[in-house]
């Protein structure tokens, strides 16, 4: 938890020597509290104070990264329990598990699918992050083979799952440069496991049974002392309700109590408590919303991955900054001076939905995007950010008047009630009411042509 200026001041020399460039130690402390100065500017601060200040400024949930170049999973550094309090920063990594008891072809098919999967949504491309390989056979050479099959396959992040430290030590040279997550240290193997993690500088997952957080904190304390600090937590809960409670407790303890032993991101296995792929999706969606760090799925199916990636994008969107596009004129299919003109708002979901439908219609058109401060049509209308005056301004200042030779404007069906007001604001214009839903735009635009 961040210290206040006064708490920091107590740790400083209080000599007001000015060598840091600030007139007094108190002023310097205030600057440190707001992060507008660096502690290293003070030549006289004691080691002890330095350690204390550094510890206090460490984030309550450690940032841990898995993978090297290519697709890297970075999780942690979260500051709130509820996204409306600020935002969630580092979205959980979604990885798909294979087992070394599967055939090489099966493993390769999953790895290829994970690597190649990409879906566009509101202008962003959404990907699956990695593959977890489990040493289910207990056999080291089978494990190595599976890792080879997956590893030959581009830059997905890797999770290596084995409870035997020697097995991991044997296979790690194959992929150590890719910084896989090792899963997992437990009460029985932690010394040797920590040794492997330290040797290869890999992040390490720590696991206990059934949500025993005291045991988990004890383990992370021991492992941290052994020199491994990039940890991920598996509280061992598998049912939805147990996971929700354990993961909430861990996040609360880290944020509210600044409890270091549990100040790490979490790894979870939604498929292990589920009896069907759709139930796994329900559990995974809980882990996305409620504090998951790395989520290991047991099924790869675009039908089930796409909703999860969409949910992740939704939950990790900054509530203070809705995704927006630039207010402007967007030509679609090379429109000419007589092509229809449609107007909507600059909430990016609105823009991409409308633009996508106009594109799909094959009808050349001008899409005018008004500045609604990133709100959707109805919300913007209700908030007075998409009214007749705003629409007039968009028409007159966007440059569209130089591009078209007609005066017909198509407005969204949901704001049909405004057409009279817009006609008043834009004398001589014909205001046409388009469909309410973007999905009906294609047939609407085609009907205009006929």
């Amino acid at each position: 938890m961040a210290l206040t200026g006064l708490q920091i001041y107590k740790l400083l020399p209080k000599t007001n020597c000015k060598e840091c460039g600030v007139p007094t130690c108190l002023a310097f402390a205030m600057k440190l509290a707001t992060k507008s100065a660096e502690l290293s500017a003070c030549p006289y601060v004691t080691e002890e104070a330095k350690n204390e200040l550094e510890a206090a400024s460490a984030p309550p949930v450690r940032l841990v990264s898995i993978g090297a170049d290519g697709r890297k999973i970075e999780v942690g550094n979260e500051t709130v329990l509820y996204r409306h309090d600020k935002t969630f920063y580092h979205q959980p990594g979604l990885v798909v598990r294979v087992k070394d008891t599967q055939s090489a072809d099966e493993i390769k098919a999953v790895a290829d699918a994970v690597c190649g999967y990409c879906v566009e949504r509101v202008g962003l491309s959404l990907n699956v992050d990695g593959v977890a390989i489990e040493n289910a056979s207990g056999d080291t050479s089978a494990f190595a083979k599976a890792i080879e099959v997956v590893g030959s396959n581009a830059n997905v992040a890797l999770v290596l799952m084995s409870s035997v430290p020697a097995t991991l030590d044997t296979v790690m040279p194959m992929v150590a440069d890719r910084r896989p997550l090792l899963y997992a240290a437990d009460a029985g193997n932690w010394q040797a496991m920590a040794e492997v993690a330290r040797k290869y500088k890999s992040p390490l997952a720590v696991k206990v049974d059934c949500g025993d957080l005291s045991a988990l904190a004890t383990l992370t304390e021991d492992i941290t002392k052994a020199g491994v600090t990039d940890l991920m937590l598996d509280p061992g809960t598998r049912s939805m309700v147990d996971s929700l409670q354990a993961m909430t407790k861990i996040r609360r303890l880290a944020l509210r109590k600044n409890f270091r032993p549990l100040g790490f991101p979490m790894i979870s296995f939604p498929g292990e408590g589920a009896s069907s792929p759709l139930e796994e999706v329900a559990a995974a969606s809980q882990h996305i919303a409620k504090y998951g760090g790395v989520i290991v799925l047991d099924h790869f199916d675009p039908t089930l991955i796409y909703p999860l990636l969409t949910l992740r994008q939704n939950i990790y969107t900054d509530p203070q900054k809705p995704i927006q596009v630039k207010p402007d004129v967007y030509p679609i299919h090379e429109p000419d001076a007589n092509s229809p003109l449609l107007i909507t708002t600059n909430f990016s979901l609105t823009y991409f939905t409308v633009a996508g439908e106009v594109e799909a219609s094959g009808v050349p058109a001008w899409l005018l995007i008004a500045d609604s401060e990133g709100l959707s049509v109805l919300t913007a209308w209700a908030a007075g950010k998409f009214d007749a005056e705003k629409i007039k301004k968009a028409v007159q200042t966007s440059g569209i008047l130089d591009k078209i030779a007609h005066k017909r404007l198509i407005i969204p069906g949901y704001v049909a009630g405004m057409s009279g007001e817009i006609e008043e604001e834009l004398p001589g214009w014909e205001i046409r009411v388009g469909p309410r839903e973007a999905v009906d735009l294609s047939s609407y635009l085609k009907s205009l042509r006929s």
Partner: protein
Amino acid sequence: MPVTVETPTEKWAGKVREITLGATAAEGGTRTSTVTVGGEGTMPFLHFEGETPHRPVVAIEIYDIAPQDWSPILMDYWGDVVNDVVAWAKKAVELGADAIALTLRGAHPEVNDRSPEDSARVVKDVLAAVGVPLIVYGPGAPDKDNEVLVAVAEATAGERLALGLCEQNNYRTIAAACMGSGHIAVARAPIDVNIQKQLNILISDMGLPLDRILMDPTTGALGYGLEYTYSVMERLRLAALQGDAMTQQPMICTAGHEAWRAKESKVGEGVPEAWGDWKERGIAWETVTATSLIEAGADILVMRHPEAVAIVKKTIDQLVAK
């Protein structure tokens, strides 16, 4: 060195109000089962912290006429029953509906313009056919909503239906109808904590008791504003727990309507291959929309596809398990 971790519990001053939908014969209605929701004294399902005395419930949404704009996936699933509201209601109960949400779409002036009296008769028919509580929505045209719901309220006095929607600009008539006939009002605000609270106050100021007002925070589907609904619901629940009496109404979410309006559920052709199989996608879309809202504090989910309903009910089983 063993470390001992103390359970980080929050102490709350308030809890969600309990509301019972439906009235049995002994209570002046004709329902054979009723549904009680609310009463939570914690953020969703944190049983170490507070009580969740009632499980969230699922209402299956049906129309009084064959829907014109539903996804073919839904129409294929339901088949012929969509042409017979009574058969549809019975089928929905068989498939696990805790309540029926009946939308009187046929009364819409642009659809069949069915009269208020005939619409009320449809509601009576459904009440006669099933024993579960009913939620009844107007056709979605403000003036007609009022006429229809007043007629429904009077014809079903004492049944303790939930009637909606009461909105900021149109709540008086429906709230008054609820008051006179012992029904529950569904108050919908546009994803806004303050407007929701204001609307609850306005309705209760008219004299409708607070144990007869449900909040509908307005649902955004997965990919279409879900995160706004999710956060508004968390904020409403937090306010309720902190003791704000005017935000303590149980929440109802129209997850089915919204999820099946999304292009992902509605359209099967000309979409990216990465979207996967259409039918399963629609079901997954509704499932994820609904389960996410349950995690945010939904008490009643209004849903459309029975396969999604089955998964959501299993999810609820898991979450309420102690």
